[in-house]
């Protein structure tokens, strides 16, 4: 299961598992986002390299236009994946308060 939507304050919220089967859906949604993008990962259970590719492609596109992606509510497991991938040096990341 994977869901992605814009919530009330303009934040993009994701829910579930962002794997290779869901990457096309995530990319299609994020391709429509313009300007600064705050991505709430509080309900993201899992991400694989396919999901990382979606984030990287979108971040590069938005950075080229002077904005980018900010990742918030990042849990420990997801943060480990970002750290191993070097994404912690590429993205502004706010950890989960849990």
């Amino acid at each position, binding site marked *: 299961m994977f869901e992605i939507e814009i919530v009330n304050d303009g934040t993009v919220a994701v829910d579930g598992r962002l794997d290779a*089967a869901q990457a096309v859906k995530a990319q299609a949604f994020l391709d429509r986002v313009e300007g600064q993008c705050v991505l709430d990962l509080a309900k993201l259970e899992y991400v694989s390299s396919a999901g990382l590719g979606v984030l990287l492609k979108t971040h590069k596109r938005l950075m080229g236009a002077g904005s980018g992606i900010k990742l918030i509510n990042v849990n420990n497991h997801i943060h480990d994946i970002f750290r191993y991938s070097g994404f912690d040096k590429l993205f502004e990341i706010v950890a989960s308060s849990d």
Partner: protein
Amino acid sequence: MQKKFKRSFDELRNIVAMTESVFREEELPPGLRNVVDLATEELFVNMVTYNTESKEDILIRMSPHEHGLEVSLTDYDVERFDPTSAGTVDVDAPLHERTPGGLGLYLVMKMVDSIHYEYRNRQSKITFIVNRK
């Protein structure tokens, strides 16, 4: 437990269901799940994406190991490709130089505790172990 899966990303949900079942039956620590899920997905996706000449299903076997869980993926009627010899990724490169390619296998090598590749009779088998921490 072992099962065969079709060469489709849609099978990922069924692979996750198999992993859930193994963890429940073997009472494995939930903390190992994400590493097992990630390594299994990355290796399966690699086989589906690059071994396009084969029409055979991919066999996944999960069995308890002395220190955790052993997982093997076997791909039939394929050319040799050793994921453990895949090139490294410069994770310190700046954003404009970064591309997603190769990141999956790089993460597998970083996160599992051991990994082994065998190729025999056009069968490609990769086995990894994730230990209880």
